[in-house]
């Protein structure tokens, strides 16, 4: 899922400072699952904003809505009937959701309530970790199911750098060395000899961000 976290409330307050009537929109997709943008966060943020405004002696009207997803036009259109009544849309979806809001409601500013962080999963209740950078050219079959692009701080493809020490990364001693993990995994799979010695050719990054904004088209599905 896409993992995001709440922006500092001061930042949000500053963003909406000039408005006194806003629409706060949550998303029931990824950001609900990572506890950043679901209905509960909508209620909490709305209340926090109103509280802050009351301390300044100026009220703000907030309409609270949580959509099924903010990354599909049909859902985004569900607020069409009343969006125009508000001065701004504060979206607590991922960056996709905020942009979809901006694209669909051109006359109203769409503001981000979250910082979209990464694609990852839950390690345990309340802990999420990055797993994928969406490079568009997956190599996990070569690396024991552990992504060198994401898990190695330097995205190296042919083994660890000299900064790997005691299984930890020189960039941050809290972070496991991605290549240490890959090597251990390959050994456990009995694939170390065959895989590790193989030189991985230079990666084609054109499928990644280097090729500009990406797009996928499924002609078989297209109408």
């Amino acid at each position, binding site marked *: 899922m896409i993992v995001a976290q709440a922006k*500092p*409330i001061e930042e949000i307050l500053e963003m909406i400072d000039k408005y006194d009537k806003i629409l706060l929109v949550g998303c029931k997709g990824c950001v609900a699952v990572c506890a950043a943008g679901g209905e*509960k966060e909508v209620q*909490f943020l709305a209340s926090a904003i109103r*509280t802050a405004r*009351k*301390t300044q002696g*100026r009220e703000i009207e907030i309409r609270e809505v949580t959509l099924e997803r903010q990354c599909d036009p049909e859902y985004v259109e569900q607020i069409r009937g009343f969006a125009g009544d508000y001065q701004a849309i504060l979206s607590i979806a991922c960056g996709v959701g905020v942009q979809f809001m901006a694209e669909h409601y051109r006359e109203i500013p769409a503001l981000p309530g979250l910082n979209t962080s990464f694609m990852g999963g839950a390690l345990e209740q309340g802990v999420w970790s990055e797993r994928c950078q969406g490079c568009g050219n997956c190599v996990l079959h070569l690396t024991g199911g552990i992504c060198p692009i994401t898990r190695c701080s330097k995205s190296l493809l042919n083994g660890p750098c000299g900064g790997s020490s005691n299984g930890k990364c020189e960039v941050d001693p809290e972070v496991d060395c991605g290549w240490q993990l890959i090597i251990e995994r390959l050994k456990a799979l009995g694939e170390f000899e065959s895989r590790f010695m193989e030189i991985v050719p230079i990666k084609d990054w054109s499928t990644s961000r280097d090729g500009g904004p990406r797009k996928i088209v499924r002609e078989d599905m297209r109408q």
Partner: protein
Amino acid sequence: MDYPPNVKLIRVPCSGRVDSVHLIKAFEEGMDGVYVAGCLEGECHFLTGNLRAKKRVEYVKGVLTTLGINPERLRMYNLSAAMGSRFVEIAREMTEMIRSLGPSPVKTGAGREFPQEQEEGEEQ
């Protein structure tokens, strides 16, 4: 066994039922202080509810700080059903603390209770 009548209770089956939304709502509504009274640590009737409540209280305290509301206005206490005198003590302690802080800025609209730079917990 006497405490000031400004303390009013909202009954929940477990302090773990108390949600961060309930806490912030109470402040939005202009409560001067809120405290969550849970079982003693390690003695939660529902195993871990009081520990979850404690974490939520900590989280909301952080948010209050950023909103310019003194985080001391929100507290978590642990006590057992047998500790009546402790209950009284807490009610008094909380009341005295709120008195010294004055009314919530939510009611007065007087702006932040303390300057932005000031660190949490340095009030008085």
